[in-house]
């Protein structure tokens, strides 16, 4: 799956996007966040407060409880500050 990071998530993790093979036992976005958090300190820091993270699957906003199903691309970012 293609995983993209924006703003301070990108800075903390150290990459804007990556391709990862996910274990089959990851069901929801929350499962993926927990799995990513265990990769290293950067990921742990980025996801230390999962409730503040916003998520988009295939460029549509989704909740953290959303099943991953066959999502091709997932993006993680902070609350938006446009306008």
């Amino acid at each position, binding site marked *: 799956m293609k995983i993209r990071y924006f*703003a301070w998530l*990108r800075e903390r993790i150290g990459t804007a996007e990556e391709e990862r093979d996910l274990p089959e036992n990851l069901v929801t976005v929350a499962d993926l966040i927990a799995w990513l958090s265990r990769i290293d300190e950067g990921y742990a820091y980025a996801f230390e407060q999962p409730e503040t993270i916003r998520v988009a699957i295939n460029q549509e906003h989704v909740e953290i409880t959303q099943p991953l199903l066959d999502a091709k691309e997932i993006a993680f970012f902070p609350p*938006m500050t*446009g306008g």
Partner: protein
Amino acid sequence: MSAFKVRVQEENFNCEEETKSLSANRKDIGAIVSFTGLCRDENQTLAALELEHFPGMAEKQISFYCQQAVERWPLTGLTVIHRFGKIPAGEQIVLVIACSAHRRAAFEAADFLMDFLKTKAPFWKKEHFLDGQTGGWVEAKQEDEEDTKRWQ
């Protein structure tokens, strides 16, 4: 009307030109409301804001809310332009122009769109200060989130 114009771009925009292109050769427009958001420096410390965005999703999200606006109000023209990249203090960041036969629809549609651009369009602002230091990422404001509830 069902058409609207959405642009996400690095370069600056010209409100007057955009307004003219909406109203040229038209006689059915009675009201034009335009909103321009600027890069603000309240403490004489900010050099620029750097706007990061999610290309593709930004256009899709803005278009989604434009579509909501044209379904909700009888608009006769609608343009939204949002810039990205490093924007010096004092420069323009965002433009919304809403046209209608009467003022209320134009005011409300522009107000509605700005509320959702602030909270749902994937843009993030980082501060760059005059002393060369890079500040933090601008934090989302709870009141902006509250403002969107006015439209439920």
